[in-house]
């Protein structure tokens, strides 16, 4: 064959693979979550009553109610598709919630309805995890050190505060969501929800102190739409 034919075939193959790599759906909603105003100063956590945890830190950790980053970025914000996408079955992998250093890791765990939630205790002290739902069934469970992980699931979509009955400063959140289009912002505040089929969507951003905000966006093909959220910070 002539060289130009080979090159064109190569390009064609590349183009074909690029189309197949784009996947069944195409659109992406991405953006950044920021704040305006002055957020409250996060205080260092006093763990003196639990020396086995306190000694794990060279400087005391701060509370994670409001997580900020450079450029007024807001971390730990759950951004998700609250309307427009069908409910999805839960994935088979478990969502992992860890108690370590007398804190919850991650501070906010987003997972799906009926997805297995696995809670482990890596500390030398007992914890008693107590989620406080309004729609789902309320339970609390003690987990002595060295006992197997707790396995639970929630069957309704809800934002659930989580506390430890033994260590009052331990606080976290579960975001139980209906579909797989969600992200929790890192402290850069950036998020990206990919693989959205064409349609009209409501995107919600939820921050545990500042509440929620919604925006509507329409995806027609495989474009990327930008949606930004700005929350008003509270000084106290």
């Amino acid at each position, binding site marked *: 064959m002539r060289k130009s034919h080979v090159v064109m075939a190569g390009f064609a193959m590349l183009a074909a693979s690029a189309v197949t790599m784009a996947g069944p759906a195409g659109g992406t909603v991405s953006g950044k979550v920021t704040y305006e105003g002055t957020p409250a100063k996060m*205080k260092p*956590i006093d763990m003196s*009553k639990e020396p086995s945890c306190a000694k794990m830190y060279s400087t005391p950790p701060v509370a994670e109610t409001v997580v900020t980053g450079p450029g007024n970025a807001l971390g730990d914000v759950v951004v998700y598709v609250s309307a427009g996408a069908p409910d999805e079955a839960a994935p088979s992998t478990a969502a992992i919630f860890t108690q370590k250093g007398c804190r919850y890791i991650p501070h906010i765990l987003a997972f799906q309805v009926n997805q297995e939630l696995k809670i482990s205790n890596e500390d030398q002290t007992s914890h*008693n995890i107590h989620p406080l739902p309004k729609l789902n069934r309320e339970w609390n469970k003690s987990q002595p050190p060295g006992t197997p992980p707790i396995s639970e699931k929630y069957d309704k979509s809800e934002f659930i*505060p989580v506390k430890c*009955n033994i260590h*009052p400063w331990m606080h976290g959140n579960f975001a139980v969501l209906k579909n797989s289009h969600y992200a929790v912002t890192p402290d850069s505040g950036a998020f990206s929800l990919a693989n959205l089929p064409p349609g009209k969507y409501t995107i919600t951003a939820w921050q545990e102190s500042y509440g929620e905000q919604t925006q509507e966006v329409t995806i027609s093909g495989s474009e990327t739409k930008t949606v930004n959220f700005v929350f008003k910070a509270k000084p*106290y």
Partner: protein
Amino acid sequence: MGKLLAVVLVIIALASAYPIIANKYPLPEDISTHGHQIDEQIKDTMLEAGLSFVGAQLVLALFLWSFTGRKPGSPLKNFPGGAKVMVIAAFLIVGSEILALGVLGQKAWANVYFAPPRADAIQVQAQAEQFAFYFRYPGPDGKFGAIHPDKIDEGNQNYFGLDPANEVEARDDIVSGELVVPVDHEIQLLMHAKDVGHSFYVRELRIQQDFVPGLDLSVHFTPTKIGKYEIVCTQLCGLGHYNMKAYLNVMSQADYEAWLKTQSQ
């Protein structure tokens, strides 16, 4: 077998008394101004109780030894004086103990509970909750902000439900997980229970007092030695009761003031 029991009784009595006589389980060191009176009372009571205990077990042993396994037909005897002697002895022995310990020993109780706190006592509010103690200092303005139960937000470490957004007095309040105090200065602890009954107990301070929901209780004391001492909850308050503690951190006056300054920032 009666004689065997007599021997075992003697062994038990002496074995029980030994750890006390040899001071194998001494009271923790006393770091308070009033504690020595309590310790004195414990010592006096231990002497009287110890003598009664050992005495009674030895008498029981003696009588068992003497009056078991007797030859059939041995004469029966009655204790000289009979029951009357016992009644008189009981009244005399116990009566004098009651007088000595009960009546004369009220000083220690009075010192803790009847004497009012000094005017210059440092006031610290203590809140007991499931399952931690938190302590609040009024800050430079000397005033405690109000407590709003509906504003409690533990994830944000607002354990007392303060409202600094709307109340000026609450803005400079210092909340600490440790009870930090200067040595040789009277402290008045204002005690508030957030949820259920708890209790404040520092062994070395010889102080123990319940937190009762709905009641404004207070207790005052003067720590006399620098160091860290455990504050433990002694009123069953739920599943975390065993791990409900804080530390009393007695510092020098200079260190205490420096600590207050760092907390205010």
